[in-house]
């Protein structure tokens, strides 16, 4: 705080516009799921939301470049981002909790083990295994096979870990005013993340069409796609954020002291990376 007066940002039209488009998005999605119509409001909402994010962030960048934000505003942004990531952690915690509950409690009970083993009277032929290839009611149908963790998933793990490292190098370059290195490492990160997504897509197609591993393939398919799917969405968001950072870097934004937007995207990317490590261990390997 160089002066003791507070900085309060100006009003902005973006929040209210964004609320309107989110409303379109929700109503469109609801209509798509219930009646099949609703593509138009959904697309309006989707495109509109993207537009709003672009506009809102551009305003923030302009203000940031104009030097309007003081140290206090910077701290507010930092804390806001940190708590936002904490909320994301809890979002994934719910899904990991689901996975553990199913594996540790529900399936053994259905198979006749543990405190509620009497349940097996209802499913006399069921055998609990993980991965669950045959569901308690066989008509639901489990997957025919599962993804081998030591093929594409391992490559993906290495890609993401590598991308975290390259991003850290980029950050160091930024701190040392080395624009060229910064750009190179940032591009490398983007490429690694992009390849990760492509491989994930290939794996999904393979799983869905050849392994019979689908959302409907019992609880294994459900948890598999829930965890990897939401992780994939987060990778995509992270890539978009990093791409925006690249554009800003190319425009000459950020200084060694003031580059919180860059740091925030790095936090987010590391978070996505850590989630993947958990996924690799508990969804694929164990």
């Amino acid at each position: 705080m160089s002066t003791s007066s507070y900085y309060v940002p100006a009003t902005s039209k973006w929040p209210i516009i964004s609320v309107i488009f989110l409303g379109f998005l929700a109503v469109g999605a609801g209509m798509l799921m219930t009646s099949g119509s609703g593509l138009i409001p959904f697309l309006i909402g989707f495109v509109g939301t993207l537009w709003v994010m672009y506009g809102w962030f551009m305003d923030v960048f302009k203000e940031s470049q104009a030097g309007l934000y003081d140290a206090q505003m910077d701290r507010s942004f930092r804390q806001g981002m940190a708590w936002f990531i904490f909320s994301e952690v809890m979002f994934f915690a719910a899904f990991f909790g689901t996975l553990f509950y199913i594996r540790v409690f529900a399936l053994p009970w259905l198979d006749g083990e543990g405190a509620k083993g009497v349940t097996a009277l209802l499913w006399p032929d069921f055998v609990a295994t993980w991965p669950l290839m045959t569901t308690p009611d066989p008509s639901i149908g489990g997957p025919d096979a599962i993804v081998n963790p030591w093929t594409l998933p391992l490559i993906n793990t290495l890609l993401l870990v590598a991308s975290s490292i390259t991003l850290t190098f980029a950050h160091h370059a930024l701190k040392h005013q080395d624009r060229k290195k910064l750009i190179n490492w940032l591009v490398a990160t983007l490429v690694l993340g992009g390849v990760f997504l492509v491989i994930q897509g290939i794996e999904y197609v393979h799983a869905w069409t050849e392994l019979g591993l689908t959302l409907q393939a019992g609880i294994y398919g459900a948890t598999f796609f829930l965890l990897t799917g939401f992780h994939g969405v987060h990778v995509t968001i992270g890539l978009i954020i990093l791409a925006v950072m690249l554009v800003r870097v190319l425009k000459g934004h950020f200084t060694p002291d003031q580059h919180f937007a860059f740091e925030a995207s790095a936090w987010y990317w590391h978070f996505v990376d850590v989630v993947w490590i958990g996924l690799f261990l508990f969804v694929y390997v164990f």
Partner: protein
Amino acid sequence: MVPELPPRPDKHQAISDTAAGGSAVDQGGHHHEQPTGLLRWLLTTNHKEIGTLYMLFALLMFFIGGTMALIVRAELFQPGMTFVVPEFFNQMTTMHGLIMVFGAIMPAFVGLANWLIPVQIGAPDMALPRLNNFSFWLLPVSFTILLSTLFMEGGGPNFGWTFYAPLSTTYGPPSTSFFILAMHLAGISSILGAINIIATILNLRTPNMRLMDMPLFVWTWLITAFLLIAVMPVLAGVITMMLLDINFGTSFFDAAGGGDPVLFQHLFWFFGHPEVYIMILPAFGIVSAIVPTFARKRLFGYASMVYATASIALLSFVVWAHHMFTVGLPLTAQLFFMYSTMLIAVPTGVKVFNWIATLFRGSISFELPMLFSLAFIVQFTIGGLSGVMLAIAPVDFQYHDTYFVVAHFHYVLVPGAVFAILAAAYYWLPKWSGVYPNVKLGLAHFWLSVIGVNLTFFPMHFSGLAGMPRRIPDYALQFADFNMLSSIGGFLFGISQLLFVAVIVLCIRKKGEKAPAQAWEGAEGLEWQLPSPAPLHTFDTPPEFIPERDSPSRH
């Protein structure tokens, strides 16, 4: 995430002046041009205006949800299907719960937080003002979608506000997807609002206000905001899984595919139990502000109040399954959740004892905010004591899902949380509007509310113990008398809330006794140094703050 203290201002930049607070008031200066008319409210980033919006929204929802409650009470006035059909009755109980929890009580507290936290800690506004605007305006969109489900084919949500699977998934009405998306929007609003509140409290305190100097309302909101950020995403996760079960053929909550319906309840109550505290902790903060003012004595055990709030919050993460004592938990789990739940009574008791010790040997007067706060203490304690009874797992087998539970949580939420919100409104209305609330109307409102609320909810203990399950539109004859009393009380309570609207309208129109800066004789805190009504922009520069322990006026 606790920051180092902001540096003290080098010079006292002319902020040591009078109660009218010369520099505390905006003097034109560098504030941006305000749009006018409707646009002003749509675009506002001012914490006071957003706070007002939140509270008005909550009031509207309070009346919509209340009307639904009255439809329920009208049907239950007598046994037999008399007034509505069971399908509609279930939609009314469900929507009443959802609207009151997510649309009335939470937004009311968020509105109070918006209005009060910046002025109580000497901040110019919330830390992230545009996000604040965004958080608010998500709510009207969310609740418009939610209410519109009532008019969709198959009706709105009819599975209770706890929406247990598979009643809400496989057997839910088609509109359930809309309900889920509406909850997502409300959840985003809550998370972002909570992030904003934490950032404000940790980052924008006036320089010499340390954490342990903060008013308790700020403390309770800091902890509440933490709870919100921790559990709203879990709710988002579980409703997303519902959405997948309904529309994409997954089997999270279906044993046939290897899932478990009880998993839904675990996830829901991992959110739901802290959610209960989200709806009561800020009330503790309000009462802890009002009682010392009208007892003219420092709050007894400030530190233990803070610690007790923190322990309640931490414990709230490990007690969720006490809502599920009858689902067939293994014995060890049953015992664990029974013990941890019983322990919550300890810090909660500490709070009540502290308030009473504050009253003890004070100099007490009975203005409207004080009346509501005292009623809160008594009525909340009744709800707390029935909570202790419910914690005993084997006995809970008899209470669970009966009107005894309905009585318990309504005692905590209506004569508890709602009374605290009303107390806050009467306490700070002079600061918001510049005039005192009308005493005659306020007294009538208070007494009719106290009578109405107790007449509604006290008999429910008995109908529950006598064996009446909750969420039924029709009941056996032995519950008839208690239900008739409850229905009469419900209508009395509901209608008397119109008096509150009258009080507010009078205040908005500035009809009433003008309030000075320090509207209440014994009031302490930065907000009472601002003129009444508080100007739109306050504290352009950090004000000087004297911690209460050093305050000359109250020891």
